[in-house]
C-alpha cells in the first residue's frame, strides 16, 4: 500500500491504484478466496486454450479520476459552443434541475430491468406514470416504456404493421420530408420482412388526401407521416388521411413528440393507430442524438406490441403494486417469435422525461407548446422583414422551426456561425431555424446577425 512516491507533473494513476480501483478485494481477501477455491493463482481459473490466449497489452494507459476528468474535459472543449438554433427531428428544451438530481439517484440509475418487481417498485411506478403520460397525450390505449429513438420506433411500428395485418402486402409509405436517417433505419428494420419503402411527395410541406389517394393501394401495409414534420410544418389533413389509410386496411403511423402533442389534436382522435417519435425532447438536453423512442398504439395490438410494458397488479398484502407484464411477447421468452429483439432500452431517459413532464404539469406543457408555435411564427415574420430573406418558405403552420430562403445558404450559415449561432443548411438557398425556450433569449441577436449577414 505504501512505498516510494513517484512524483511527476502528470499523475497518471492514484498512487494506491494497482489494478481496477473498482474491485474491493484486499490482498488478504484474494489469498483467502483462492484458498477457499483451492487454487493458488487466479490464472488457474481461466480455462482458455493456449492457442487463443492473449498475452499482450492493450497499450491503454490508466489515469486517476482527476486526470481522466481533466483530459476528457479538455477534449470536449474542442467542441465549439454556439447557441444552437437546430432541430429537424432532434429537439431539446430547458430541463429542470430536479430531473438531474432525481435521475442520478443511484437507486434509479444503477438498477437494471425490473425482473424483481418487489424491490423495484420505484422505477416501475415512474415508468407506469410515463406510459400514462403518453396515453394521455396520444389518446391511444397502450404506450410502452421505451425504445431507442424515433427511427427505431418507426422500424418497430412497421414490423408491427406487418405482423398484425391480415392480408399480405409489401409497401410502406413515408413522406418525402422524412429525415434520411430515419428512412435508412426503417429500411433495415423492414428488409427482413421483404417490405419496400416508398416516398409520398408533399404539397408545400404537407400531405394532402389527394397525394395519398394517388399512391395508396391494398398493398400498403403502413402509411407514415409526421406532424410537426422535419421542416417544422404541421400536417393539416390527418383525419381524412386516416380514413383513406383505414379504407385500405393499412396502419396509420404518426411521428411526433410529447411537447407538440400538448398542443395538437390527439392522434387517436384523427385515426392514428401508432404514434412514434422521440420523447427525449423532454428530459434530455442536446445529446448528439441520443434519444428515447416513443411508441404508443391501439389496444387491439396489445399482444403484438414490441418492448417493455409496466402494469398495475396487487401484492400479497392486497396493495396495488407494479410489475413488468406481458413478457411472453419478449425475446427472453419468445426468442425468434418475439415481437421485437429489444431488451436494454432507454428506461432512464423515460424516467427523465416523466420527471420533466411532471415538473411542467399540464399547464406548463401546454404553455411550452404554444410558445414553440408562436416563437416560430414570430421569428419567421421578423426574418421576413429583412431584405434578402424570405421566411417561412412554406405557407403553413409551424411548430418550433421553419425554413428561410436566402441567396447563399452556406455563406449565410457560416457568417451566422461566426456570430456564435448554429443553424441548419437545407439546400443551396434554404436554411432552417429552430426556436424554443432554450434559445429564446438570443433571438434578437440572431435576427440582428441575419440582418448584418444578408446585407
Amino acid at each position, binding site marked *: 500500500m505504501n512505498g516510494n512516491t513517484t512524483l511527476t507533473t502528470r499523475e497518471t494513476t492514484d498512487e494506491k491504484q494497482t489494478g481496477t480501483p*473498482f*474491485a474491493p478485494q484486499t490482498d488478504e*481477501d*484474494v489469498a483467502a478466496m*483462492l484458498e*477457499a477455491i483451492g487454487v493458488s493463482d*487466479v490464472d488457474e481459473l*481461466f*480455462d*482458455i486454450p493456449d492457442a487463443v490466449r492473449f498475452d499482450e*497489452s*492493450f497499450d*491503454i494507459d490508466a*489515469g486517476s*479520476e482527476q486526470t481522466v476528468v481533466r483530459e476528457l*474535459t479538455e477534449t*470536449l472543449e474542442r*467542441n465549439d459552443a454556439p447557441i*444552437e438554433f*437546430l432541430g429537424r427531428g432532434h429537439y431539446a428544451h430547458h430541463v429542470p434541475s*430536479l430531473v438531474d438530481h432525481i435521475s442520478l*439517484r*443511484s*437507486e434509479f440509475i444503477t*438498477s437494471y430491468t425490473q425482473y*424483481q418487481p*418487489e*424491490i423495484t417498485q*420505484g422505477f416501475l*411506478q415512474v415508468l407506469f406514470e410515463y*406510459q*400514462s403520460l403518453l*396515453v*394521455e397525450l396520444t389518446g391511444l*390505449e397502450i*404506450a410502452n416504456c421505451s425504445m431507442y*429513438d424515433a427511427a427505431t420506433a418507426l422500424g418497430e411500428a412497421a*414490423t408491427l404493421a406487418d405482423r398484425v395485418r391480415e392480408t399480405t402486402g409489401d409497401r410502406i409509405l413515408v413522406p418525402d420530408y422524412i*429525415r434520411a436517417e430515419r428512412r*435508412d433505419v426503417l429500411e433495415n428494420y423492414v428488409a*427482413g420482412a421483404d417490405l419496400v419503402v416508398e416516398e409520398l411527395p408533399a404539397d408545400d410541406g404537407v400531405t394532402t388526401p389527394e397525394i395519398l389517394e394517388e399512391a395508396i393501394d391494398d398493398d400498403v401495409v403502413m402509411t407514415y407521416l409526421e406532424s410537426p414534420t422535419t421542416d417544422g410544418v404541421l400536417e*393539416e389533413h390527418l383525419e381524412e388521411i386516416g380514413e383513406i389509410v383505414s379504407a385500405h386496411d393499412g396502419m396509420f403511423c404518426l411521428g411526433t413528440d410529447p411537447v407538440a402533442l400538448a*398542443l395538437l389534436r390527439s392522434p387517436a382522435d384523427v385515426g392514428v393507430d401508432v404514434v412514434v417519435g422521440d420523447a427525449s425532447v423532454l428530459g434530455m*438536453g442536446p445529446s*448528439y*442524438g441520443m434519444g428515447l423512442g416513443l411508441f404508443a398504439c391501439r389496444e387491439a395490438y*396489445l399482444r403484438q406490441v414490441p418492448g417493455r410494458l409496466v402494469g398495475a397488479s*396487487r*401484492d*400479497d398484502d392486497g*396493495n396495488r403494486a407494479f410489475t413488468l407484464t406481458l413478457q411472453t411477447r419478449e*425475446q427472453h421468452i419468445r426468442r425468434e*417469435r418475439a415481437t421485437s*429483439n429489444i431488451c436494454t432500452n432507454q428506461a432512464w431517459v423515460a*424516467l427523465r422525461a416523466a420527471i420533466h413532464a*411532471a415538473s411542467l404539469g399540464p*399547464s406548463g406543457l*401546454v404553455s411550452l407548446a404554444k410558445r414553440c408555435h*408562436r416563437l416560430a411564427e414570430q421569428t419567421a415574420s421578423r426574418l421576413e422583414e429583412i431584405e434578402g430573406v424570405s421566411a417561412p418558405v412554406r405557407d403553413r*403552420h409551424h411548430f418550433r422551426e421553419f425554413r428561410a430562403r436566402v441567396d447563399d445558404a452556406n455563406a449565410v450559415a457560416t457568417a451566422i456561425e461566426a456570430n456564435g449561432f448554429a443553424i441548419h443548411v437545407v439546400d443551396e438557398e434554404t436554411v432552417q431555424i429552430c426556436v424554443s425556450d432554450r434559445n429564446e433569449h438570443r433571438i434578437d441577436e440572431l435576427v440582428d446577425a441575419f440582418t448584418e449577414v444578408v446585407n
Partner: protein
Amino acid sequence: TQAIWNDDDSEGYEPLLSERNLETVEVDDTDLPDHLTRDSLKLPELSEPELARHYTRLSQMNYGIDSGPYPLGSCTMKYNPKFTEDIASLPSAAVHPDRDEASVQGTLQIYHELQDYLARIGGMDAVTLQPPAGAAGEFAGILIAQAYHEDNGEGEQRSEVIVPTSAHGTNFASAALAGYDVVELPEDDDGRVDLEALSAAAGDSTAALMLTNPNTLGLFERNIEEIATIVHDAGGLMYYDGANLNALLGRARPGDMGFDIMHYNVHKTFATPHGGGGPGAGPVGVSEQLESFLPNPQVRERDGEYELFEPERSIGKVHGAMGNWLVLLKAHAYISRLGGDGLRDASAKAVLNANYLASQIDLKIPFEPFHHEFVASAGDRDAADFAKRMLDYGVHPPTTKWPENVPEALMTEPTEAESKTSLDQLAEAFGAVAADEPSALEDAPKATSAKRIDQTSAAREPQLSWHQLESR
C-alpha cells in the same frame, strides 16, 4: 429492509401523481385552426416540493447496485463509477447531432478513440459505436453478415443463422428480425457447443453462427478454433455476443478466436449504468474484410482533425443518429480510468469472485469450470421462489430458470465489484434460503417494499396506465 412509503389511506404504496392532483388545462388562445389543436389536456399538476418528495420516496423503493449485491447473471451489474456522470453532464458534451463536424471535434475525437480502444480490446479491425444496445448490436452485426453474403452473391442462399439453445433470447430475435431462419444448436453434455451437431447444421445456407463465449453457463468454448473452422469452411461468419466479455478482458480476444463480428455491451463490460433498463450501447467490431459494410457514418482522423464518412458498402443505419453518445462517453471515461492493466484486473477479480462465491454455496453447480458466472440449481425448490426468498436477506437474486440445461437454474454473476464480505453475505443468503421451510419461499418476500406481486392477473387483465386503473 427496504423503505416502505405508504400511508394508511392509500390503497397502494406511494400514490400515483394522478392520484395527487389531476388537472385539466384548456388549450385555447392559439391562432391555429381548431381542427389541428386539442381541446384540453388532463395531467398531474404538482409543485416541485411535492415532486421531489414523490421521486425521492420512490427511489428508496428501488434497489440498485449501490443498495446491495446484484448478482444478476448475464447482466454484469458492476459498480458504476460516479465521475463518469460528471463528464457526461458537462455542457460541452451537449451538442445537437446536426452540428458541423468542424464544430464538434471533441465529440468526434472521443468516438474515434473509443472505436480504437474497443478494437484493441476485442481484437477487431474496425468498430462502429452506433448501435444503442446489445440487441441493436446483434442486429447490426447480422445485417453486416447479410450484406457480406449479398456482396458475394450468396444473399439468398445463406438464409440461416445458427444459435445455441442456451443463448440469449436476443440472438434468436435479432436474427429473425433480419429475416433469417434460426437453427437451434443443442449443447453437449459438458454444456458446450456440440461439434457434431454444428457440423451437421453448418452448410451452404449458413449465414452465421452466433456464440457467447464464455457461454451462458460461464464455460469457455474450448473448441472455439474447431468451431470457427467448421463455420468458416461452410462459408458462414462467426458472430461473438459480447455479453460475457467481462470474463476475458486482457486474456483472450474474440478476434483472435476466429470471430468476424462481435458486439460489446458497454453497460456490462465497461461499467456504464444500466439505468433501470437502459440506455446502454452495443458497439460492433468487425474484421478487416467486413469493415466496408459498417453502418453510416464512421469517424476517421486526418492530421488531427476528425471527420465522418460513409463506408463504401455500408449497411446504412441502425439508429437515427450516432447512438447513445452520453453512454459511450462514460465508457470511454471508464476505460481511460482503468487502462489495459485495470481491465485485465477487473476480469481476474470477476472470475475470482464467481469462483469464490460458488465455493461457499452448497447448491449443485452442474457445469464447470466456469468463469465470471455460474449456474447453480435450486434442486427441488422452484428457482423463482428461491429468488423471491433471497430478497428477504437484503440481496438481489440471480437470474432464474435459464439456461434450461440446468434445472431450476440460478445464474449468478457477482462481478469484480463485490467485496469478500459481500460475497459471504450472498453465500449466507443462498444457504439460508436452501435451509428455509418451503412455505417460507412461497410466502416470500416479506422484507421488501412490496410483497409478492400477482403476475397472472397483471397479464390477464392488463392495466397499463392510470386511465385503466380500477380498484379490484
